[in-house]
């Protein structure tokens, strides 16, 4: 009796009767077709686009996808909004750069591991005092830690190069893992002969393109599995109400700290890879500008969904590094105006549409009313405004 009843029940919420996917289904499973299509399109894109400048900027954008997704697993999911994500990115990047400068024998792969370790450690160190903090306190604490790291680079100016940064970092070409992945995929997509016939710099661009793509797919895929699985649900519950989560038996500290460390580790990896793609590191990797840019990306894409910030990163970063430069010379002569423009846009968006741009748009496109809130858009409203 009871067993049949229970067995029938789950069908009810998933279909909901109206033919539309239920909020639960959306929450637990984003459309897998779209998710598979994206990396495949990106994989074969170089076959049709031979503008290497654009491809190079897409590679950079792919790195930013990792920055944004790693930010999201902490900030968008648990609601501990990090205002200094650059601290983790920069730690990863400088770890790789310093190793390359002082221990050139250390392999690139090991350097990336070190970047992950260093960033994760920093995540732990910041995460512990931040455990009890909310909203403004967390914001200021994370912001000031990133600021302190900038100062550290000045204190160790001889090592870090101060404002000039470090150049000549070993690149993806110099790492056997990254080079194998990059070359293999380049030959697969472009054809082996075409690739071999390219100049060294073009080869480097293609290798960067494919390496960043592979890293991104693995990282974002992993974060999505986590975020849309059981643990993701627990992280969301923490954002919604910490006390209620504890009453439900959630080990709050473990999850919050875990999210902090994971977010930091992923950012460190992405930052380290960025150093190997650029071949240089500089203060822009620690600056508040970068931290804010990530928040901008998330605000446009919708936080708490991993995929939202990931798509947002492509839009914002390609605008910033490619399309804006071609729109007007003003941005070429004054690159600092780009972040200013984005900041201004963000302010306007926050005032007129506090849930970000993409999530409500998607809702309208897919015919969902505002009745059910997209899981992705809760950052600004639900993130910290506790009475």
């Amino acid at each position, binding site marked *: 009796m009871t067993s049949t009843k229970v067995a029938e029940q789950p069908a009810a919420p998933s279909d909901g009767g109206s033919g539309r996917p239920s909020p639960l289904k959306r929450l637990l499973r984003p459309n897998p077709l779209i998710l598979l299509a994206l990396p495949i399109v990106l994989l074969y894109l170089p076959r049709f686009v031979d503008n290497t400048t654009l491809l190079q900027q897409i590679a950079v954008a792919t790195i930013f996808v990792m920055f944004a997704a790693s930010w999201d697993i902490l900030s968008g999911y648990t609601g501990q909004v990090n205002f200094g994500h650059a601290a983790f990115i920069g730690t990863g990047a400088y770890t790789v750069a310093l190793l390359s400068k002082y221990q050139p024998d250390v392999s690139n792969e090991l350097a990336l591991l070190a970047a992950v370790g260093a960033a994760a450690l920093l995540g732990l160190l910041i995460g512990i005092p931040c455990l009890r903090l909310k909203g403004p306190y967390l914001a200021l604490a994370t912001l000031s830690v990133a600021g302190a790291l900038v100062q550290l680079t000045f204190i160790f100016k001889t090592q870090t190069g101060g404002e000039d940064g470090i150049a000549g970092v070993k690149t993806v070409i110099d790492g056997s893992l990254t080079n194998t992945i990059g070359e293999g995929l380049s030959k697969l997509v472009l054809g082996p002969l075409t690739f071999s016939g390219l100049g060294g710099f073009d080869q480097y661009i293609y290798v960067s393109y494919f390496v960043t793509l592979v890293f991104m797919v693995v990282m974002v895929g992993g974060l999505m599995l986590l975020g849309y699985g059981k643990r993701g649900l627990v992280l969301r519950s923490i954002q919604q109400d910490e006390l209620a989560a504890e009453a439900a038996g959630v080990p709050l500290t473990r999850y919050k700290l875990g999210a902090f460390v994971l977010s930091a580790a992923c950012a460190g990896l992405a930052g380290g890879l960025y150093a190997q793609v650029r071949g240089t590191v500089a203060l822009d990797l620690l600056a508040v500008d970068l931290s804010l840019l990530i928040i901008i990306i998330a605000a446009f894409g919708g936080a708490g969904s991993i995929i939202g910030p990931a798509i947002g990163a492509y839009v914002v970063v390609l605008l910033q590094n490619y399309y804006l430069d071609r729109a007007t010379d003003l941005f070429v002569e004054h690159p600092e105006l780009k972040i*200013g423009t984005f*900041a201004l846009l*963000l302010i306007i968006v926050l*005032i007129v549409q506090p849930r970000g741009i993409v999530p409500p748009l998607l809702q309208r496109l897919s015919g969902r009313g505002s009745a059910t809130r997209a899981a992705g858009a809760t950052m600004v409203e639900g993130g910290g405004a506790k009475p």
Partner: protein
Amino acid sequence: MDVLVQGALTSAVIALVALGFSLVYGVGGIVNLAHGSFFMIGAYSAYAMSETGAPLLVSAVVGVLAATLAGVLLERLVITPIRHQEVAVLIATLAVAILVQSGVQFFYGGLERQLPGFVSGAVTVFGVTLQQTRVLAGLVALVTIVTVLLVLTRTPTGRMVRAVAQDEEASRLIGVRPERVTLYVLAIGAGLAGLAGVLTAPYGVLTPTMWLLPLTQAFAIVILGGLGSIPGTVLASVVVGFLDRFVAFNVKDGDIKVGLVTVAVILATLVLRPQGFLGKVAR
């Protein structure tokens, strides 16, 4: 002795920045990440005026007024529409800080600038030789703070502000409009921060990222002193001010390590005593 005199002067300037930050938090529940930008706007506006050949005193007044105006604009245009969304306010004010930074960089480039001193030469106080500009800055800051504290404690307006800081709902019942008070406090806080920017401009350096350190220091002070607590703010300013000078004098390359020490203070306080050492529960 060096540290004592210099520490006192630095504390006064820091308190000028922190007081506004803390009051705005206490009164409006608003953490304004653009607070350091008022400091920068004050400094750069004064610098811009002095570049046009205006007398220094006029430049200084313009600097303070510009910062005050910026405070009013920020409150009206940005904060008011999203006042009750804490995280949105944080993000928007950080965006404003970056917007201002980007604007300053556009007009003045990333190079370091400096305002000519209001006074030059050195004086000797208690056997300590000091740049006169620093002494002037410290003294003006001190007088301003004492005035602000007197206004807060002795006048009806001040009592109204403190009433709102203590209990917004209750103060609404007795006919105070907290929104109004928030605007005033933000404007005045911005002016105070702008004044601090003007005062330090002759001996600090002006760069587009100069807003971050005062913001961090104000945060450290608020954490140490407790939320919205006025005596706490003043006392914590003294602690941070002395620490600042102590590090600057006694540690190699101290000047650039000041920020680090501030952050260490922040993190240590958060671990040891998140409610601050003097104030209400800080969460």
